[in-house]
């Protein structure tokens, strides 16, 4: 038998163990709050998520307490192992959940599993601690002290969590930090009682590994949120902001810059040129004269504006985009201005952060050209910008023989939606010339040229071939031809009081499993 390792003098053992009770109690509640918070973040419905997490956690604790009766010998050794288990499961709970939050099914499984594991382990601990302390106190005194400390710890946790931990430390760091504390307790406990040296060394070794894991985790966690978002977006995030309307995320790799609004790709620098050249230049050609004043609705990324500014005749561009977060980013961020050439800061460009519907209602200006580049009609608020009422307003903003172009979702993935937009445009008195282009990031994408009677698909462009990067006159006619699988289908008019388009659109994209 090996000689026992030196242990702490007995008079310190008792307070040390009580201190561990406090740490264990605090971190137990912290893990419960962390998982509950994440669950309500990711799954929504905070009341249901919190009650489920609390319920599972308490039940698992009960199971743990019951299981403690099967631990009969080597109490301290078991206790240290369990404490290390809590440190790992609890400490890593938030990072694990973050890592997989994008996949809904796995998230739920992992969530409830983690809660159950932590619950069982914490449930095991208190009975073991009481038994470890039995040597120094009688049961009455012991239970009173341990439980009192346990509840005080709980109170401290529940006060600290919302007021200090969550706002200042962040949710992942909070869970890692308390995991680290649990690890320290485990490490410290190896000094409490005499044990065989081999056992002590093994326990300390494990404790150090656990502490190191959590410690490293803590330091990388600062960038963890962004990194797991980055995983979701498939590239590092260079800019992220939550505006009142949407989450704005810009990602960048050495090759490609992408903009996401609420997780939906808006453009990729790989092929945005195709999209924006196709959006702007056919409309200018259809206008049949040099454009002088242009209204851009949506298009806060300034890329359509960049294309417009290629025409020296342009005197004034009014850009109306709801979200100041987008236009600010694309006016100021170097990665953004590199793409749009600083178009939003051009003296000819005026930016209004306003609702386009209202702006069109209140404005009295008229324009040669309007470029309408709203997000797809995936909800009723955006859907209003695809109604006959809106196109009536748009008509009032166009001067004599003015022309507009409207981004109109994909005729390939949302065929009836596309033709519903065309039908609605026609119902509001415009002549429509629908066309489409292939943009690799998006698929086959649709636009509609609109104007007064007599509007025709253009056959030439007003810029020379060298001024453009993708579009050329010879491909123009092809854009206005629809193959049989995307050609016109009967589709309803989208009205403010009957937004059939939103229902059709959600259905069509829903079928694609998006």
């Amino acid at each position, binding site marked *: 038998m090996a000689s026992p390792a030196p242990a702490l003098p007995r008079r310190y053992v008792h307070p040390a163990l009580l201190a561990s009770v406090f740490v264990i109690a605090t971190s137990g509640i912290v893990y*419960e709050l962390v998982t509950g*918070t994440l669950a309500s973040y990711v799954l929504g419905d905070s009341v249901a998520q919190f009650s489920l997490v609390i319920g599972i956690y308490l039940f698992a604790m009960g199971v743990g307490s019951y299981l403690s009766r099967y631990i009969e010998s080597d109490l301290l050794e078991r206790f240290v192992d369990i404490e290390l288990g809590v440190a790992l499961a609890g400490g890593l709970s938030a990072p694990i959940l973050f890592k997989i939050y994008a996949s809904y099914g796995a998230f739920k499984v992992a969530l409830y599993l983690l809660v159950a594991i932590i619950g069982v382990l914490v449930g095991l601990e208190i009975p073991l601690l009481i038994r470890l302390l039995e040597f120094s106190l009688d049961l009455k005194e012991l239970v009173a002290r341990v439980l009192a400390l346990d509840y005080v710890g709980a109170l401290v946790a529940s006060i600290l969590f919302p007021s200090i931990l969550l706002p200042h430390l962040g949710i992942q760091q909070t869970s890692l930090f308390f995991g680290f504390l649990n690890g320290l307790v485990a490490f410290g406990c190896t000094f409490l009682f005499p044990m065989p040296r081999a056992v002590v060394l093994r326990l300390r070794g494990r404790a150090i590994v656990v502490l190191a894991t959590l410690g490293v985790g803590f330091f990388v966690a600062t960038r963890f949120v962004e990194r797991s978002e980055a995983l979701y977006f498939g590239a590092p995030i260079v800019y992220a902001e939550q505006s009142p309307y949407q989450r704005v995320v810009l990602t960048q790799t050495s090759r490609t810059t992408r903009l996401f609004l609420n997780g939906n790709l808006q453009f990729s620098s790989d092929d945005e040129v195709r999209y924006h050249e196709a959006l702007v230049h056919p409309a200018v050609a259809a206008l049949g004269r040099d454009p002088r004043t242009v209204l851009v609705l949506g298009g806060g990324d300034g890329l359509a504006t960049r294309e417009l500014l290629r025409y020296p005749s342009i005197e004034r561009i009014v850009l109306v985009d709801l979200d100041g977060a987008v236009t600010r980013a694309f006016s100021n961020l170097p990665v953004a201005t590199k793409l749009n050439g600083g178009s939003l800061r051009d003296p000819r460009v005026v930016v209004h952060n306003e609702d386009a519907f209202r702006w069109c209602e209140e404005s009295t200006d008229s324009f040669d050209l309007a470029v309408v580049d709203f997000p797809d009609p995936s*909800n*009723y*608020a955006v859907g209003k910008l695809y109604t006959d009422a809106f196109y009536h307003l748009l008509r009032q903003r166009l001067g004599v023989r003015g022309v507009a172009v409207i981004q109109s979702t994909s005729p390939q993935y949302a065929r009836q939606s596309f033709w519903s937009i065309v039908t609605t445009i026609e119902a509001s008195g415009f002549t429509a010339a629908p066309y489409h282009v292939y943009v690799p990031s998006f698929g086959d994408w649709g636009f509609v040229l609109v104007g007064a009677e007599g509007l025709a698909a253009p056959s030439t462009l007003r810029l020379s071939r060298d001024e453009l990067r993708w579009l050329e006159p010879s491909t123009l006619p092809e854009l206005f031809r629809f193959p049989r699988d995307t050609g016109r289908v009967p589709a309803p008019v989208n009205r*403010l*009081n009957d937004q059939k388009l939103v229902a059709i659109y959600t259905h069509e994209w829903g079928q694609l499993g998006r």
Partner: protein
Amino acid sequence: MHRRAFLTAVAGGWLAQASGASSRSPAGGILGAAASVGHLLRDGGVPAPQGPPERADVVIVGGGVSGLSAAWRLREAGLDVIVLEIEPFLGGTSASSDDGAAPHPFGAHYLAAPNPEARAALRLLSEMGALTHWDAAGRPVFDPRLLCHAPQERIFFEGAWHPGLVPLDALRPDERAELARFSEVEARMTARLGADGRPWFQIPVDQSSRDPEVIALDRLTMAEWLDREGYRTRFLRWYVRYATLDDFGGEPEDVSAWAGLHYFAARKLRTPELEGSHFLVWPEGNGRLVKALAAASPARRRTGTLVTRVAPLAGRPGVEVVAFEPPGRAYRLEARAAIVATPGFVARRLVPGAADRGLPDRAASPWLVANLHVDRPVDPDLPWDSVIWGADGLGYVDARHQLTTLSDRTVLTYYRAYGGVDVASTRARLAVAPWGALADDVLRDLAPAHPDLRAETSRMDLVVWGHAMPRPRRGFLGHRPFEVPTTLADRIAWAHVDQTGLALFEEAQARGVRAAESLADALGKDLGETWL
């Protein structure tokens, strides 16, 4: 187990904090002075009028839709018209407020696209630009921006929101079948003409058929009619109850079957533009119509003025009106004619002898309206009207719905009708209920669908309508249906929705216009063709 209770409390408390700015309680109060001041009428305590009488050609008592419509009708007659209104605001039960994140209603909140026969209403809408033109078939076409935008409604049914007022997917087959049967009957009744060639149900109400077959429906309550026709499923019964509460503030047991069916079968306008919704909706509800009526007439308007007496002058043609501006001054006005545009129970007190004119004796339903000023995340798919199945109230409408702009601040207007038979004791209870208790009731009623609402609400203003609207009880059409007394005394006309017993905007307007036109001779004016 103590620990469980503790953990739950901890997490729950934190949750309440995390989900709102703080676990605060809203501020607010009860609006409208009329109830207490109005009691002066009943209980006395108004000082004697002093000074020489003020003069006007026509005095209109009451600045609700009926009174303002009367003034509107008289606008081209070159008369000095004055409107006296007890409340600090115009509009009566169609009043509204412009404070907060959006204008919002105190009462009436929509106007169903009026039938072509509601000519006064269409005239007003056309003046406002809300009626843009008439289509080839001679039907009115409305500005699409004013028709209730999609999505219109949702219902919280068995723990989840469903689009529309009917959660079809969640209903049992027998419930769906009964709904289908009911809507067939609804369609048939809508198209039905009586033996006299008039539609069974019409708005204005007095243009409805006198055919004894349809009038016979007034001898049943709506509940009795449902029983007779074999409608039994819980959803249909709830749906009809929702309708009678919404339109009349009464339970199906206390509302005439004629009135109940009128709700479903009086709207005749069918055009493609109205398919999605035929409701005209403004953020401030019918308060917008009140503003338009007020702006369209040169009449003088005096708010905060209680009229205590309207009587023919002794010995010469003309009318004497006594007015009181609480707390101080009472004075007299002399006019060539007067229009009393108040509910019947007020008219009876104001005009001596009016009680003998056969004024209908109507019960009135009490209502509670709550305006909740809330801060909450933008929801691009929030409908106009949210209804909670099984709640006491009728749900709430979102004042921002018709605005295209998104915002995280809005005003939700919650409605509750007290439909029980004993209106008097409900009214008495409401009259003394403190704001806090009523506000708690509202939040509790909405809690199943909105547990976080208390924390989201910064202010809740309440309006207690003791006599919100006449309740068309069984037999309310009387022995001579639709022959309503318009004259209260010589040169004193009456205008109010109490006359026909259905509280609808078009009805209030028709009553006001009729009263004004009935005074043409007394005023010696040719008012031209009728506007009705």
